[in-house]
């Protein structure tokens, strides 16, 4: 594993039953960088993302070949507990999915149950996480109120704060702004750029401008294959594969 990378996939194939959703993916995700995954619908971006923290384990017929190396170990190795992996590799979903609990309890849910934080630290942890997710000022007086009463954009930032409260190394985000209005989207983009100082971020997006604006590296996927993986600047100004160019200029997908 190279020094500046945090996760590496080596020749990964992924199957839903008989259907092969990913073919021969080898990728290095770099520490403290934002990596964007782009490509037309159904090309396997979410599948790859969920593969990185073993969320695909929930799908009964799913099967992985190849290795996914994190902290010098194959996370699909026989002695690896997926629960431990997910503590270090957090996830934010496309649709905001807060628990039907108070804002405070949403944040403390993970740390409490996985024994990461001491009880006394919980209040500080809540404040810290909410500040990191740029939500503190909006909710500091209503921490006891139900998270379901927040707006969509606030809920998504709450979900980010909830993931950050676990102090993960990596944050996986699957189209985190696709359900949000432009202002909330801008807030989350700003937030993501801020977060990369402490975290490694891998983000799936359908929004080309978003990928170009916030990411350092971009991977373009098509039909389950990694077509091109390059510095974002290079991909958006001078892609080396014709398919990539067609996609980012909007000629298909």
């Amino acid at each position, binding site marked *: 594993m190279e020094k500046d990378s945090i996760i590496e996939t080596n020749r990964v194939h992924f199957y839903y039953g008989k259907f092969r959703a990913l073919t021969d993916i080898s990728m290095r995700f770099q520490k403290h960088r934002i990596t964007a995954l782009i490509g037309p619908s159904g090309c396997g971006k979410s599948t790859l993302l969920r593969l990185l923290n073993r969320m695909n384990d929930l799908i009964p017929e799913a099967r992985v070949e190849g290795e996914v190396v994190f902290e010098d170990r194959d996370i699909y190795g026989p002695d690896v507990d997926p629960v431990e*992996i997910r503590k270090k590799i957090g996830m934010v979903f496309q649709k905001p999915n807060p628990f*039907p609990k108070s804002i405070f309890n949403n944040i403390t849910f993970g740390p409490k149950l996985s024994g990461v934080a001491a009880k006394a630290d919980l209040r500080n942890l809540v404040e810290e996480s909410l500040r990191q997710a740029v939500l503190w000022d909006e909710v500091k007086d209503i921490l006891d109120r139900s998270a379901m009463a927040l707006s969509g954009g606030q809920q998504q930032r709450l979900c980010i704060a909830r993931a950050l409260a676990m102090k993960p190394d990596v944050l996986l985000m699957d189209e985190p702004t696709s359900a949000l209005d432009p202002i909330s989207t801008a807030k989350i983009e700003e937030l993501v750029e801020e977060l990369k100082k402490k975290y490694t971020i891998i983000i799936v997006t359908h929004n080309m401008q978003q990928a170009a604006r916030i990411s350092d590296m971009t991977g373009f996927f098509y039909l389950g294959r990694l077509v091109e993986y390059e510095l974002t600047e290079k991909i958006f100004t001078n892609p080396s594969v014709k398919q990539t160019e067609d996609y980012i200029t909007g000629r298909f997908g």
Partner: protein
Amino acid sequence: MRRRYFKQSLFFALVTLSAGLLLFSLGGLLVYIFLNGFRAVTWDFLTLPPMDSMTKGGILPAILGTLYLTLGAVAVALPLGIVSAIYLTEYARQGKIVRVIRIGVNCLAGVPSVVFGLFGLGFFVVFLGFGSCILSGALTLGILILPTIIGATEEALKAVPQTFREASLALGVSKWLTIWKVVLPSALPGILTGSILGIGRAAGETAPIMFTAAAFYTAKLPGSIFDEVMALPYHIYVLATAGTFIDQTRPLQYGTVLVLVGLVLGIDLFAIVIRSVVRKKKRW
């Protein structure tokens, strides 16, 4: 055009008619029971044991007996049913074996209640040697309502959005804690509703308890789970068929029926209230 309109109104009339029929027979039944029974239901009737060969006095032992039996059945069936349903929906690999188990559970729900009574007699009363008592009756009733509780819990668990499970698991919370802290609380209203309707059934069954728990007559109030008890459904049966003064006890029969129906409706109402309270607390 006109024909279609005619068909539509015909269909509508049919639907209205059947709904009306249903309401009418239910309402008729309740009114009939009430009119015949309400004069018998006095304070003494609710607080005294039967007297003078059961032609006078009250039904307190039967009320208590039914309450104990029902509570016992719940204490047996609710934990067992919920755990089984969690295993079936959350843990077991959804394949042939689980399908067979599910079919088995559904068949169990369709077995006539007298068969449960005979099973209880053979297994709890005789084989395990509990004798005819609250324990045997409660266990038998518990098995009787187990399929209902499993079914209700499975439905409620399936109705919990998958995104809740994902959100919790993605935080590095174990599967068991996810079920305990996220899935079960969300499913609780559904579990309670379905289960308490099953409990209403347990309170009203006669056949399963007549061999396992119910006494023809005892003035003594139950003191331990190894006591035989009177129970409302069986008491009605006894008054209506087996007594020596059937005509004299007619008002008492209706009074007992009224108490039993009131008890079952009360339990259902309780279910509805609990559900709405829990729902209000857990809104999403």
